[in-house]
């Protein structure tokens, strides 16, 4: 009897240990299935003048009626709350999708971007556990495309190849095949505080600002003026924990990057790259920039500072999707005080456009319901109406160019004192150059160059030494 009890305990312990090694508890899962009564597309009936009493119905729909039966089944969607909950769901696009595809059940799992980038590659390499649809930013997209495990969507995206921003396709293409459908782009602009500019004696009208601060040389001058007259810092540029975001934006604008997109050669230590870093270094040298690190509390604090006396940050060079974050949770108290201007160029004649971020939907090969997954992806991102609805409540400017003629783009934004900001975003997006910043080895390249920037900022090395070391590391890594 004693032995039996002891054996039972062993089995229980073994089972307990095995269970403890089981899969991690499932994260927050939200099953969404709403039936909303939505007005169906109007059916245009045309009566043909014929002796026959038959009515010929001409049905007009914005997209061609699928001949195959509608996909059914359940799909799991991974994405971050700002994009899925606050945009796809809040705008009603999810409800529209459910109405059109009532037999597809959508289960949404919210993951922060860093969690997506931890869990998705693990699921892809493990061969199971991946969702049917996953939201991925462009910075990490190429890595997963080259890793493998994503569904080939080449045939399905054919109709969209010339309708989306061209540069978006670059990261999701491999050997002529496409593995994503783009959602939004990240055209970079310069946000500026009108009240700070006014106090510094600078123009406040956006067109004038764009004309006055046309080059980074002008920007340096303006920053000096702002510091002198108001004491405020010009923009935020952390030294010790810098992860290269601003540097990448300025590189991209010049068509530069960590590598040459055509030849693959590493360009992290090219004279132009070094020059760009030195140019940013001048702002550090003259103490014109604050030390706040992006996406930390001090950074939010200086963006959200309402009163002039408390020295808000004067400008912010970031992508268009930043405006919704400013409005909603970072700086709601500063409504009406901001303006949007074009970002300055490094050299005259350069293009006043760059990119930061932007995301896409991908479908892992493991998906048991690829048709349903594609139906979801296409509905949300491929249809003009959906993209416009998403854009209306968020700052995610669609990569779908057919949306740009909508009156939505001509609306004034009260947060920016009535400025027609969306027009500027659309204008910038069309000019984003091709550059080798994102790519299949982005993490590694960014990691090496980060250290170079930090060491240069600390004064330990010159820009040339730092970048040459980083480039050597990158090249050794790529062998």
């Amino acid at each position, binding site marked *: 009897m004693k032995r039996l009890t002891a054996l039972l305990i062993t089995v229980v312990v073994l089972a307990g*240990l095995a269970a403890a*090694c089981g899969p991690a508890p499932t994260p927050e899962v939200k099953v969404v299935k709403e039936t909303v009564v939505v007005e169906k597309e109007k059916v245009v009936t045309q009566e043909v003048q014929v002796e026959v009493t038959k009515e010929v119905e001409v049905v007009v729909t914005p997209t061609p009626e699928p001949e195959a039966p509608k996909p059914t089944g359940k799909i799991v969607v991974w994405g971050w709350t700002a994009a899925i909950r606050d945009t796809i769901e809040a705008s009603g696009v999810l409800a529209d999708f459910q109405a059109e595809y009532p037999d597809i059940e959508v289960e949404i799992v919210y993951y922060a971007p860093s969690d997506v980038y931890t869990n998705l590659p693990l699921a892809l390499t493990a061969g199971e556990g991946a969702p049917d649809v996953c939201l991925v930013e462009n910075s990490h997209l190429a890595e997963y495309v080259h890793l*493998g495990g994503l569904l080939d969507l080449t045939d399905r995206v054919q109709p969209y190849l010339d309708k989306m921003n061209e540069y978006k396709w670059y990261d999701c293409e491999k050997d002529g095949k496409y593995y994503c459908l783009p959602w939004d782009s990240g055209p970079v602009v310069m946000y500026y505080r009108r009240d700070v500019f006014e106090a510094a004696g600078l123009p406040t009208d956006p067109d004038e600002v764009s004309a006055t601060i046309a080059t980074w040389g002008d920007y340096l001058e303006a920053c000096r003026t702002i510091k002198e007259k108001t004491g405020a810092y010009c923009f935020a540029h952390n030294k010790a924990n810098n992860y290269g975001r601003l540097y990448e934006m300025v590189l991209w604008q010049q068509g530069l990057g960590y590598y040459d997109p055509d030849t693959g050669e590493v360009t992290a230590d090219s004279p132009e790259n070094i020059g760009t870093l030195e140019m940013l270094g001048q702002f550090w040298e003259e103490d014109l920039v604050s030390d706040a690190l992006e996406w930390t509390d001090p950074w939010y604090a200086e963006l959200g500072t309402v009163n002039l006396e408390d020295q808000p940050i004067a400008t912010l060079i970031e992508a268009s999707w930043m405006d919704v974050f400013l409005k909603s949770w970072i700086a709601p108290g500063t409504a009406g005080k901001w303006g949007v201007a074009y970002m300055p160029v490094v050299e005259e004649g350069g293009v006043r456009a760059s990119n930061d971020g932007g995301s896409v939907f991908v479908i892992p090969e493991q998906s048991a319901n690829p048709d349903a997954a594609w139906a979801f992806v296409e509905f949300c991102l491929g249809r003009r109406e959906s993209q416009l609805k998403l854009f209306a409540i968020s700052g995610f400017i669609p990569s779908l160019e057919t949306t740009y003629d909508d009156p939505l783009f001509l609306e004034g934004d009260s947060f920016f004192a009535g400025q027609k900001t969306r027009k500027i975003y659309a204008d910038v997006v069309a000019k984003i150059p091709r550059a080798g910043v994102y790519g299949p080895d982005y993490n590694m390249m960014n*990691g090496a160059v980060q250290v170079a920037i*930090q060491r240069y900022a600390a004064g330990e090395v010159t820009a040339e030494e730092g970048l040459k070391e980083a480039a050597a590391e990158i090249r050794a890594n790529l*062998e």
Partner: protein
Amino acid sequence: MALEATIMAPTERRRGLWSQMVKSRWAYAFISPFFILFLIFQFGPILFSVYLSVVNWKGLGAMEFVGLKNFTYLFGAGGKAFRQSVLNGFILFFMYVPIMTFLAIVLAVILNSEKVRGIKVYRTLIFTPYVTSMIAAGFTFRLLLEQKGGLFNIALEALGLPGVPWLESVWWARVSLCLLVVWGWLGYNMVLMLAGLQTIPRELTEAALIDGASPVQAFFRITIPLLRPVILFSVILSTMGSFGLFNELMALFYYTRGSGPMRATLTPVVHIYHEAFDNFRYGRASATAYVYFALIFVLAYLQNRYFGRED
């Protein structure tokens, strides 16, 4: 008994071993859970890692045989991060291990005497940080150490001292990390020392005190030498710990993915993690892991050899 053993036939002796094992079959059954899990989840991957270290593999797709390239890479330009991480391990070790070990011994001695009231409460308080999640503690420390607005700097400035760039400078970042590590691990080491102290007979210290030694002399001349094996054990564990810091780094230095400013606090384990899961270089990560293992092995061997018990 011994005579009987020598004149026993060989087959009988062998049967003796087997029958012994059969006799203890329940003992084997009870320790089997650990070994089964160990074989599947740890030993198997260890062997697979040896194979991985000579190939290039992204986790999916083909494995490309590359021979010893993953190892030679560590000594070239690409291995800079790894070499920095090993250096960091040594620096961190010397920064916090001596202090922490000494504090642990002192605290253990104080809390070992029955004269202190509420001993159990103090012991629990000191041990509690060890059982808290280091990730949660790390994030809390990060908020406290924020240069503008973190409590530490606010307190310093209230006293009229300048604020410190806790997480923004190479050496202060290391200090911050050491603060967090000592906070979290002091309790554990103290308990180790307490256990060791239990083995030292009270009479020895009492005899010394009667003979006229001061408590401090007794401490340094009797207690510490007798605690030597425990101290060695604690130091070896701390060595592995200082090279293997992971949770603390990921929490404190979230934005540089654990590297810290200018890779000041990168440890080998975090570096291997980056190689494998951020850069998708499983082959290189495996090779790095084996080199790291060899390093720790050598360090532990040397420590054992030179500071171990000389009998």
